[in-house]
C-alpha cells in the first residue's frame, strides 16, 4: 500500500488520472434539475396568465355583474356566473357537512375501536375508495345512487320536511333523483377517504399520555375522542377538511353525471342545478363566439382562484398543526 502510494507520487500524471471522471458534468446536471423545476414553476404561472388573459373580455364586458347575475344565454350573448358558482359552493358545502362527520367517524373507528386484525384491510379498502376514478363515481351515482334516492329517500324528505317553513323550501319539487343534493352526496362519498386519512394521522399523533390520562379518570371511548382527541387535533382536522373541500370544488365528472345541468337558480336542493366544472365539461367544446368562450374561461379562473385559496388555508392550518405536534 505504502509502496504503491510512493510509486504514484513519482508520476504526477497518474495522480491526475485518479481524479474522478465526470466532474465536468456536475454543473450541467445541477442545471438540468433546476431547469425541470423551473418548468413546473413556468407551467403554473403560464396557466394563471392564460386564464387571466382569456377571461379578460368577459370581465370587461360584464364587469362585476358577471358574478351576481344568473343569465346564461348564448343566443343573446349574455353570461352571468351566479348559477354555476352557487352550485359549486352548495354541492361542496353539502359534501363537507355530510362527509366530515362520517370521515371522522371512520377515523375514530379505525384508530380506537377496530380489532387490530381488521384494521389494515379496512384502512386499505377505504383508501381504495380514493383511487376509484371520478367517472366511475359518476356512473355509479347516475345508475345506482340517484334511482335509490329518488325512489326511497327524496319522497320521504319532501313529505316530512317539505311542509316545514324555511327549511322546507330546500326540499320541494318532484323526486327526480338527480339534482344538487345527489351531486353533494356523491362528492361527500368521494372526499371521505381523503378526510379520513388525514384524520387518522392527526388523531393518531395525539400524545398517548393525554389519552391514557383521560381513560384513567374514567372517560368512555367516545368522551376521550370527543373531548381529548378531536380538540387536540382540531387544527389538523380542519386542514384535512379543507383538502377535501379543494377536491370537492374542482370535481367534474361525478357531478356532471348527476346534477342535471340546469342553469336555473332554484332554492330546492332536489332540483337540477349546475356547477362551474359541469358547465365547462358540457359546453366548452360546443361554445362558439369569443365572448362565450371567454365567459367559460372566466368561470375556470374563478374556480381556480377558489381552490387556490382553499389550498392556502389548508396548508397554513396543517403546517401549524405539524409544528405543534413536534
Amino acid at each position, binding site marked *: 500500500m505504502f509502496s504503491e502510494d510512493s510509486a504514484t507520487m513519482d508520476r504526477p500524471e497518474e495522480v491526475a488520472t485518479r481524479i474522478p471522471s465526470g466532474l465536468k458534468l456536475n454543473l450541467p446536471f445541477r442545471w438540468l434539475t433546476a431547469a425541470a423545476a423551473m418548468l413546473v414553476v413556468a407551467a403554473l404561472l403560464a396557466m394563471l396568465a392564460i*386564464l387571466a388573459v382569456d377571461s379578460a373580455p368577459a370581465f370587461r364586458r360584464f364587469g362585476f355583474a358577471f358574478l351576481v347575475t344568473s343569465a346564461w344565454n348564448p343566443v343573446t350573448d349574455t353570461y352571468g356566473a351566479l348559477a354555476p358558482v352557487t352550485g359549486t359552493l352548495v354541492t361542496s358545502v353539502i359534501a363537507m357537512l355530510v362527509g366530515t362527520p362520517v370521515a371522522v367517524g371512520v377515523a375514530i373507528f379505525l384508530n380506537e375501536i377496530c380489532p387490530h386484525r381488521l384494521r389494515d384491510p379496512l384502512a386499505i379498502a377505504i383508501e*381504495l375508495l380514493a383511487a376509484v376514478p371520478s367517472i366511475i363515481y359518476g356512473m355509479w351515482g347516475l345508475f345506482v345512487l340517484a334511482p335509490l334516492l329518488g325512489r326511497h329517500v327524496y319522497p320521504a324528505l319532501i313529505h316530512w320536511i317539505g311542509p316545514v317553513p324555511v327549511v322546507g323550501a330546500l326540499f320541494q319539487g318532484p323526486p327526480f333523483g338527480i339534482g344538487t343534493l345527489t351531486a353533494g352526496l356523491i362528492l361527500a362519498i368521494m372526499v371521505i377517504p381523503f378526510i379520513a386519512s388525514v384524520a387518522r394521522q392527526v388523531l393518531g399523533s395525539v400524545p398517548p399520555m393525554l389519552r391514557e390520562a383521560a381513560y384513567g379518570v374514567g372517560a368512555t371511548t367516545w368522551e376521550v375522542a370527543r373531548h381529548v382527541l378531536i380538540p387536540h387535533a382540531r387544527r389538523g382536522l380542519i386542514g384535512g377538511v379543507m383538502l377535501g373541500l379543494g377536491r370537492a370544488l*374542482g370535481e367534474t365528472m361525478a357531478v356532471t353525471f348527476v346534477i342535471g345541468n340546469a342553469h336555473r337558480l332554484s332554492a330546492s336542493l332536489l332540483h337540477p342545478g349546475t356547477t362551474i366544472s359541469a358547465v365547462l365539461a358540457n359546453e366548452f367544446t360546443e361554445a362558439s363566439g369569443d365572448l362565450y368562450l371567454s365567459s367559460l374561461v372566466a368561470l375556470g379562473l374563478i374556480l381556480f382562484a377558489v381552490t387556490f385559496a382553499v389550498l392556502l388555508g389548508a396548508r397554513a392550518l396543517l403546517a401549524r398543526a405539524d409544528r405543534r405536534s413536534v
Partner: protein
Amino acid sequence: MKVDIGIVRRRRGINRVMLALCVLAALGSVAVLASIMWELLSRGVASLTLATFLQPTPPPGGQGGLANAILGSLMMTVTAIVVATPVGVLTGTYLAEYARRSRLAPVVRFLNDSLLSAPSIIIGLFAYAILVMPMGHFSGWAGAFALALIAVPVIVRTTEDMLALVPDQLREAAAALGVPAWRMIVRVTWRAAARGIVTGALLAVARISGETAPLLFTALNNQFLTANMDGPMPSLPVAIFQFAMSPYKDWQQLAWAGALLVSVSVLLLSILARAMAARGDR
C-alpha cells in the same frame, strides 16, 4: 361518595350510540366500495367480450367494441408518463438534493402543490389554450400534455419525499470517496430511493388513466381506430362518458364494460404501488 348511577348509565348510553355510529360510518364506506365493485362486475362482465377489445366504438344500434378507445388511452397515458417521469424525478431531485437551503425551494414546492390540487378540468382548459387553439384542431398530443401536467406534481412529490428518506451518511460516504455530486445522486441516492420513485410513477399512471375532464376538450373523441396523435383521439374515460350519458342500451352496456376495464386497471395499479411501498418499508 355517592355515585349517581343515572349519569353513568347516560354516559355509557351515549358512548354506545356514538361508537355504533362510528362503526356504521366505516361499514357504510366499505359498503359503497362493495356496491361500486358489484355494479361494475355484474354489469361490466356481461358486456365484456372479445369484440370489446377488437372492434372500434359503434354507431348507436350497431355492433362494436372499445378497441380505439383502449388504444387511444394507452398511447396518451404512455406518452404522458414518458414525458412526466423525467421532469418529475429531476424536479424532485432538485428539491431534495440541491435546493435544501435555497429560498427557491419553498416556492417550487408550493407551486407544485398548487398544480397537484388544481382541478383537472382547469388543466384541460390550459392545454386547450396553449395547444389546441394555436394548432387549430383537437389532438392526442394535447391530451397527453394535459395528462402529463397532472402526472408531474405527483411524481415530484413522491420523488422528493423518497429522496428525503435516504440517510445523509450515504451521500457523505460517496462524497468522501471523491464521487462527483451528480454521480452520487444517480448511483447512490436514486438507487436507494428507486422503489419509492417507481411507486410514485405508478401512482401517477393510476391517477391519469382514469382522468376524463382534461381530455374532453384536448383529445376530444374519435369513433375510428387511429394511432395518429396529431388528430382527435378517443380514450376510455371519454368513451364511457359519452356512452353512459346516451339513451341507447347497447351504448350503456359498452360504457359499463369500459368502466370495468378502467377501474380494474386503476385499482390494480394502486394495489401494486402500495405493495411496492410496503416492501420498501421492510
